[in-house]
């Protein structure tokens, strides 16, 4: 794995006095399945937003396959499939229309669009909801349609912020298969997640971040150093309590 799909160097972001990202460096090799883990407020979403051109960094640079995201956003964004967290979709469109719209935005040829939309609907188990307005989808279906939109232009790098949140186990397993096939054929996936088991099982690389800095990064085996990723994560991040909770919260 010689080529680098995503290179983040010295990335910083401050929101009115609160430092969200305090100098992050990451190298995501091409073809890797990269996990980004960290506690709430660690700066995961902020980092991924800056990496995908949605949030302008205060300092630092981001390169996707050698193209600087903030110097040449048009070229860089064509290579990125982005599932952003905490933003709406154009949810007044039906699922089918939304994927078609996204494909058109990326200039996918008209003749290709119908086939890709159809494949994605099957892949995400969304065939039945194709004609329903996305606003009427459940949380899990909404995640899946957003993921379908991220995939439709066949990007080289997939940046997925919390892709499996509230997705049912069967769909999650199906999506996992698709993503594995994608990385096996040279695509790169970076996911943020709170599920250590999932990251340990799926990813080959992982970075642990907290308070806007990288605590540890490398292959999953390097980072967990013989322990489970869950234990290693708690060890790195700290803050585990061992109480049974306050007495008023014990009903009997």
């Amino acid at each position, binding site marked *: 794995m010689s080529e680098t799909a995503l290179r983040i160097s010295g990335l910083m972001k401050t929101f009115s006095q609160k430092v969200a990202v305090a100098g992050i460096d990451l190298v995501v090799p091409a073809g890797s399945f990269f996990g980004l883990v960290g506690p709430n407020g660690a700066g995961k979403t902020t980092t991924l937003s800056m990496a*995908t*051109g*949605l*949030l*302008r960094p205060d300092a630092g640079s981001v390169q996707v396959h050698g193209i600087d995201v903030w110097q040449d*956003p*048009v*070229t*860089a*964004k*064509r290579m*990125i499939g*982005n599932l*952003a967290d*905490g*933003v*709406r*979709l*154009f*949810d*007044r*469109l*039906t699922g*089918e*229309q939304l994927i*078609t*719209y*996204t*494909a*058109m*935005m*990326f*200039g*996918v*040829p*008209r003749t290709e*669009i119908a086939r890709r939309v159809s494949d994605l609907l099957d892949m995400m188990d969304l*065939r039945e*909801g*194709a*004609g*329903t*307005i996305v*606003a*009427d989808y459940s949380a899990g279906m909404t995640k899946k349609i957003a993921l379908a*939109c991220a995939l439709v232009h066949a990007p080289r790098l997939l940046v997925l912020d919390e892709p499996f949140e509230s997705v049912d186990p069967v769909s999650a397993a199906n999506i996992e298969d698709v993503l594995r096939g994608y990385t096996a054929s040279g695509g790169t996936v970076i996911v943020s997640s709170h599920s250590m088991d999932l990251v340990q099982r799926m990813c080959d690389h992982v970075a642990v971040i907290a308070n806007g800095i990288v605590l540890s990064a490398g292959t999953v085996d390097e980072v967990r150093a013989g322990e489970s990723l869950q234990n290693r994560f708690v060890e790195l991040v700290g803050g585990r309590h061992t109480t049974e909770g306050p007495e008023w919260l014990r009903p009997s």
Partner: protein
Amino acid sequence: MVATVLRLRYRSLGNTLARNPWQLVGFCFGILWALSILAAVAVAMGGVALTQGPPVAYVVAVLGGSALLLGWVLGPVLVAGTDATIDAARLAPFPLSRRQTMLALTAAGLTGIPGIATALASLTTIVLWLRWPAAAAVAVPAIAIAVLTCVVSSRLVTTLSTGLGGNRRAREVIGTLVLAVVIMTGPILTGVLTLLSGAGGIADRLLQAADVLGWTPLGAAWAAPAAAADGAWGAAAARLAIAAGTLAVLWLLWDRAMEASVASPPRQTARALKPGSLGWFGRMPTGAVGATWARSLTGWLRDPRYLRQLLVVPLFPALFAFTTGVHGVMFAASAAFVALILSIASYSDISYDGTAFATVLSSGGRGRDDRLGRVLGAACIGIPLVVLVALVSAFLSGTVVHLPALLGASLGILLAGYGVTAISSALIVTPVAAPGDSPFRSVPGQTFVGGLLVFVVMGAILVVSAPSVVLASIAVNVAADAGSAALSWWALAVGVCGGAVAVTAGVIAGGRVLDRTGPELLQRIKAFPTS
């Protein structure tokens, strides 16, 4: 319990104001405005009480009171939106009975700025009856009933317009219908007043109107003291009964509406389209321009927040026809007003995307493509409508000779507006109702300065479209033998060509701006308080 809810309400108001100094400025202006109205009302009441006889006091109280109640019912729908800081949905998680919830909401309504202002203004009307102690004694309970009726009816309207049927689509349709009816109220009232004309002058007409309103739920409470002043105790009692009955019925209706809105939760699966129904997305060419065009057009045709803007299209001609007649200058020029309002509607178009603008931003389309797609979408609706209004108003007002001039000015304004808003919407985002929310719901975070920007944009549009407008007005005003017809055609040419130049320049310049400001716009949208 009610006290807790009220504390919560003032706490959140305080927090909102502390968050943004400009909002505090706007809030202070709001209070000053309310105070000045109050002072004016108090002075007027004092004046009437000192110098006029009972009939005038009666007319003032009944007409003013009816207008006040009408304002409470229609105001939230039409102008201000509903204050959603405290609403039924937000109180739902707490262990409150429906009755307690309704009491809390009523109390919240009474203690907001409009509620306090209404209560104070209503109390000043006691001055009118000071000369008749019995009437003043009747006025106190009557005023209490009237003020409560205002609050309860506005809550009822809110519950109906946001919750009725529970189905999202139904809610959108009902909301739009309510607005359409409301907009026509002005013309209808004008018509009614004309019908009431009878023999005498304006004073008799008003007295007549007060007599009718005094027996309706709108004015009964306000007419009761007058009846008492005349010594007509039977009539006074009957009017108080009507007023109290109105309040009771409204309360019961509200209770029913609340029950219905709980029984049918706001999210329900709407009808699904057939697979393969791509709408405009199946017809437009692929690429960022086509995609944006299709999305914009879909919005203009289906999104209630856009449809609300289209309601001005029949409104302006209707309003002018009622006020100045179909042969008036204003009616003939209504296409120009429609053009101005339609083009300014998208002055902060990206706001309507909400955080879904992230989808646009991550696709890496160029700003120019986005601008062009949005203009095309808006123009597909705007140009036919403006031309239609111009044709209809020209035929009705008998000014077909001036049609080219009228079209020139209107299209000149419309296209100049598209050019200007292509730039302004790359710079300005304002908090708007979220997609699917009632377009009548007021949104937190709107600032005083933000509101003023509309006028800046409007000024810019008028400046850019000035050549065609000036030419058109000269053409209309010179005599036929002085080359009116030729000038008229020139106005059309200048309007269309100048407009095309304005759109092109706006799309290019706006695209450049958007390429630079895109991420910052998304940040600002994300920072808006969500309702």
